[in-house]
């Protein structure tokens, strides 16, 4: 992550001016030139995104007006920065300008202005100052092979930085599929032994926000929820916030009526594709993917992959790189040397058994004819 040392033009004042007594979120917003009207709009939008209903908007506003902003340390391991890219494209303008400063990204080696030793000092300072209070947001994951040498941050393995920063964190957010599941760098054969962060951080609550990248509104929604309510969002069995990950793409897909009707795109250029039929047969992973794409959508709610005519590739699911082609409905089972799907394996074995049965029946018939009368 040497590239992360580049200073960027983003306002990240949390780093340079660390205020004596911490401001409230609202104060930060006003300082950023956000009008009250715009602020309230943000609150109701967030309440809606979190599925909380309109009565919660004033509660969010109240919390933001009275609560001290929460320090966030955002570290980067093996990753492609698509999570950050997604985050700064959040639909509401407040996010880019405010949520970043609101959560006071006290350390984010990609977005902050500081670099080099100065940056590492900022990290250390935040850890010391807000011991046990800050949120650690992790983008990417640590490789374990060769003592973590495949990812060096500030001259030391990222693995060490991660463990160090996690030690005094109040909670940890795993941004994206990398931190949550491992993603592409952990795909077979995983030469660097990259692992999801829960394999390394075992004593802190971890909120997984998978996706490659996760949806911007989901990311800011999770953070805003934690800041306003001062607690973790409700998580599912695998540690994902229920409000965004409790349903599959398929459950809310607008092409679902075509699925139920049995109307499928068979080939990319066929009539069904033009008519916008269901993409199941060309490998859509919507039926097995938990994410909010079909409801929240992307780029200010403009579209999402299925709306653009391409099946879901299941990027927020564990190990999605290792399930074979994105364009097959029945995925490969790599344990069988030459990759085959369940039907190919099943039919081959059933064919063998069928042939054996036929041969056995034939021999049985011959034997029986030879020994006619022996039995009685």
């Amino acid at each position, binding site marked *: 992550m040497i590239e992360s040392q580049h200073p960027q033009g983003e306002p990240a004042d949390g780093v340079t001016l660390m205020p004596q007594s911490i401001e409230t979120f609202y104060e930060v917003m006003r300082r950023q030139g956000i009008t009250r009207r715009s602020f309230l709009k943000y609150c109701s939008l967030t309440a809606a995104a979190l599925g909380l209903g309109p009565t919660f908007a004033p509660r969010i506003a109240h919390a933001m007006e009275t609560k001290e902003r929460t320090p966030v340390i955002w570290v980067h391991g093996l990753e492609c920065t698509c999570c950050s890219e997604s985050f700064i494209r959040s639909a509401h303008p407040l996010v880019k300008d405010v949520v970043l400063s609101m959560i006071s990204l006290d350390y984010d080696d990609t977005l902050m202005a500081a670099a080099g030793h100065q940056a590492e000092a900022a990290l250390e300072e935040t850890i010391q100052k807000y011991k046990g209070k800050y949120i650690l947001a992790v983008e990417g994951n640590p490789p374990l092979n060769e003592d973590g040498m495949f990812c060096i941050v500030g001259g030391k393995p990222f693995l060490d930085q991660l463990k160090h920063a996690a030690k005094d964190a109040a909670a940890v957010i795993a941004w994206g599929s990398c931190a949550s599941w491992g993603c592409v760098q952990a795909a077979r054969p995983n030469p660097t032994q990259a692992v999801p962060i829960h394999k390394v951080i075992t004593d802190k609550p971890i909120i997984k926000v998978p996706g490659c990248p996760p949806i911007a509104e989901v990311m800011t929604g999770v953070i805003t929820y934690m800041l306003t309510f001062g607690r973790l969002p409700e998580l*599912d*069995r*695998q540690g994902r916030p*229920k409000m965004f990950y*409790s*349903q*599959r793409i398929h*459950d809310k897909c607008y092409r679902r*009526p*075509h*699925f*139920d*009707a*049995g*109307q*499928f795109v*068979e080939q990319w250029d066929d009539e*069904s594709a033009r008519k916008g*039929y269901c993409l*199941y*047969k060309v490998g859509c*992973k919507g*039926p*097995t*993917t*938990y994410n909010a794409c079909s409801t929240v959508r992307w780029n200010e709610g403009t579209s999402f992959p299925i709306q653009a005519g391409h099946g879901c590739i*299941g990027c927020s*699911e*564990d*190990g*999605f790189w290792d*399930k074979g082609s994105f364009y097959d*409905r*029945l*995925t490969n*089972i790599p344990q069988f040397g030459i990759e085959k*799907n*369940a*039907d190919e*394996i*099943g*039919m081959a*074995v*059933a064919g063998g*058994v*069928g042939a054996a*049965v036929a041969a*056995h*029946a034939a*021999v*049985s018939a011959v*034997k*029986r004819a030879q020994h006619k009368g*022996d*039995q*009685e």
Partner: protein
Amino acid sequence: METIKKRKQTAVYVYEAPLRLWHWVTVLSVIVLCVTGYFIGSPLPTMPGEAIDNYLMGYIRFAHFTAGYIAAIGFLGRIYWAFAGNSHARELFMPKLFSRKWWGEVWHEVRWYLFLEKTPKKYIGHNPLGQMAMFFFFVLGMIFMIITGFALYSEGLGQGSWADTMFGWVIPMMGQSQDVHTWHHLGMWYLIIFIMLHVYVAIREDIMSRQSLISTMVGGWRMFKDDRPD
């Protein structure tokens, strides 16, 4: 089995009515499950017309889930019957894996299928090889299909539903939803192999062994074709 004296009888009542009814209900529902399951994995060609006039995939899935419920409830009923029914009702669940004699008879049965034995033994209940196949292919296979099936079903019912509470844990255990689909799909082929062997052997033994089979599963009575000892 052990009682040689009984062999003088030419007919014994083995499979009571509930068990026979269960067998044929299971046959029907498992066939429906295999056919509809296959078409869930590889759907039929696209339906013409408007979406509102069609519900093919919906009906196929509905049939699958209904048959799934019937097969699963039937299976629970069959477990109950292992306690309530006669001793033959217990054989399905209890291959005598720790009995030397039993393994000896499995071996005898294998030799009979390899045409190395001239005469098979007589059995009132299942023959040991059959019993083993029923246990490993059918009982274990069916339990696997019911657990993975309801895990997939829980995804539709949603988080917090009874199916999610009881079977939802299966999904992370197997990796993710797609893996459960794959395993559930493989499980179908496992059962299909059982059915192929089972039906073949039922017909073959009905003709070639010393006892009745198919009529036994219909009427309950085991008929022996000769009076000789085992």
